[in-house]
């Protein structure tokens, strides 16, 4: 038995292939049960998201697992082979760690995948299809993901436009607590940014639109305050952050308005984001002290720089994953060693007890004290006999010595 991982993801397969192998929520349980019903598959776990379908199993044979997948999905054997990847042992462990640590994600470092993997593990736990090995593997994978997140900057910087806006604003205001945000227009990206600002501490949201009705409906939806565009100039001094995304063909906010607003608010800084094309905020505002304007290209540039930074950090994360995977695979070997020793000890012990039973007739009636004395004698004999062998086994703890292999093979055959 070894750890086997078979799957496909956005790197290896287009969506029309991925959807053919995907497991909808309702199918996962029955698939897991069907899988572990097979003799060659002891433990199994399915990760099925929009970007990947992966099966991790403790199985005797990877090919059998693959064929079983085809059967399950009613696909001809080998039909998707060029899209499938297949790993065993250390490679499988490494891949599982990479997925959990978000190194295999479309946007490297995005945090959702860890939650999805945790869900998949939980579902397999409910189904009762994960045992000792996969539980250890997944717990380790979660720990590695946490370590990667803590020790590298892989998730540190924003890579989405709407979040970059928040990050930039923090470089002006430090904290967004208590700030007032004005949302101009109903562009999707500006709306998303507004939500980010609110979840990051902004206190008030003003929503202005060409028609007051639109503003009002959006205001109820986003728990903001609707206002008319005509009031723009009057309300500007209250506003710390302006998010603008309208279809207007001209500047809605001019230098003069910002100058006045700044004077009215005693030059507390103003932060303006213009995601509209053509732009709605006069770029000349950038020349005014304490006013900071960023357009879509600026945000994109930050996002791009952050993406590159993430790539660099991903390199370091890969090193962590590599080391951890090797360590884990080695410790699996250790587990096997303990199992082998356990089996060995039990068998010898059983052997001794069996001999005792065979000799009982000739021994006649034994008092409890005698019975006890014989058991103690047998025990100590077994320990004396096994001790040097076990010590030798432990000394070849790298798990690859021929001595250990021979021993393992002997006991494997014996068990069968």
């Amino acid at each position, binding site marked *: 038995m070894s750890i086997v991982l078979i799957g496909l993801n956005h790197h290896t397969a287009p969506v029309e292939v991925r959807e053919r192998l995907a497991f909808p929520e309702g199918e996962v349980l029955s698939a897991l049960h069907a899988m572990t019903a097979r003799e060659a598959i002891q433990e199994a776990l399915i990760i099925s998201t929009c970007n990947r379908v992966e099966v991790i199993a403790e199985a005797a044979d990877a090919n059998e697992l693959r064929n079983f997948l085809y059967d399950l999905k009613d696909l001809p054997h080998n039909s998707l082979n060029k899209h499938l990847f297949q790993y065993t042992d250390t490679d499988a462990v490494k891949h599982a760690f990479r997925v959990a640590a978000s190194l295999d994600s479309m946007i490297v470092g995005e945090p959702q995948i860890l939650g999805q993997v945790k869900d998949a593990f939980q579902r397999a736990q409910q189904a009762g299809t994960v045992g000792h090995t996969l539980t250890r593997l997944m717990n380790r994978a979660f720990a590695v993901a946490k370590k990667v997140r803590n020790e590298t900057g892989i998730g540190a910087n924003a890579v989405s436009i709407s979040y970059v806006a928040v990050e930039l604003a923090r470089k002006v205001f430090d904290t967004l607590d208590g700030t007032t945000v004005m949302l101009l227009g109903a562009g999707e990206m500006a709306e998303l940014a507004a939500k980010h600002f609110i979840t990051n501490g902004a206190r008030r949201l003003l929503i202005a639109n060409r028609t007051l009705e639109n503003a009002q409906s959006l205001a109820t939806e986003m728990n903001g305050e609707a206002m008319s565009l005509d009031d723009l100039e009057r309300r500007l001094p209250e506003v710390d952050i302006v998010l603008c995304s309208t279809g207007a063909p001209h500047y809605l906010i001019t230098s003069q308005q910002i100058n006045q607003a700044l004077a009215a608010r005693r030059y507390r800084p103003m932060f303006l984001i213009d995601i509209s094309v053509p732009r709605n905020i006069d770029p000349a505002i950038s020349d005014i002290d304490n006013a*900071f304007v960023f357009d879509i290209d600026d945000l994109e540039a930050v996002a791009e720089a952050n993406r590159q930074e993430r790539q660099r950090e991903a390199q370091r994360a890969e090193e962590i994953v590599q080391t951890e995977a090797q360590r884990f695979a080695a410790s699996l070997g250790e587990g096997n060693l303990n199992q082998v020793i356990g089996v060995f000890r039990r068998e010898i012990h059983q052997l001794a007890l069996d001999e005792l039973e065979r000799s009982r007739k000739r021994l006649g009636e034994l008092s409890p004290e005698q019975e006890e004395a014989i058991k103690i004698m047998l025990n100590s004999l077994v320990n004396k006999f096994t001790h040097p062998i076990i010590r030798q086994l432990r000394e070849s703890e790298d798990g690859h010595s021929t001595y250990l292999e021979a021993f393992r093979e002997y006991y494997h055959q014996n068990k069968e």
Partner: protein
Amino acid sequence: MTFLLVVALILYLTSITFAFITFANEKFRERAAVWVRLSVFVGFVLHTNSLIVSWIRLGHFPIINLKEVCSFIAWALVGYYLLVIRRYKARALPIFVLSATSILLIFSLHLRTPEGPIPSSLSSAMADDTLTHFILPVHVALLLFAYAAFVVTVGCGAMYLIQERALKAKQFGAAFRWLPALNTCDEIAQRSMTVGFVTLTLGVIAGMVWGKEHDGRFWHNDPKEVLTLVTWLVYLAMVHYRLTAGWRGRRVAWLAIGGFVAVLITFIGARAMGGYHIFG
């Protein structure tokens, strides 16, 4: 006390190193940040001890000659910095402040001024009267505290200008990522400026009172007095425009630099010009 000072200096330099590590290495960021604070704190305690030991041994507070004064400003700077970081998180600040501290300490350690009794020009005045005896160290200490606050002001002003430039020019490099938010720089600068201005004013008043007790004159037209007046006026302008016209940000940052140049001229220039404020 040289030994204590050298150890304190090493700890300050260690702290700077850890401050750099907090930026360069994500892995050790949290741990490095702890070491930044710990080394500064232990360094500060040793530094304080060295001042106390000198005080006891000399029988007067050690802020008479340049060697002592540099060490004292360095100490005041660290003390003020420790107050600031209780409230603000500004990871780049220790690099600015502790560099200034270290330079002052190195300079102080480098000076070979012999430790000795108070120069005769002062001792005669201090011996006779308890009030003057007490007020002279207060006068000097207050002014040196003001200088320390102005160093923090100018450090934050500089950080503000660099960060503002990065934001306006849309250059999102190391400066952008390392330096604190504009509002943080601005707030620390403004508060430090107020603290510095108040202590400067009190220090000048203390000096005038001492002068009056000593020789009956508030004002001696000494170069240091004149230059201090200029410095005081620069900071007065800053406080004034902030309160009345709401000046902040870039303008305050430039004023902070202007004020600090005045401080430097007062501190260094007055020595070159001589006068009765020079005591070795």
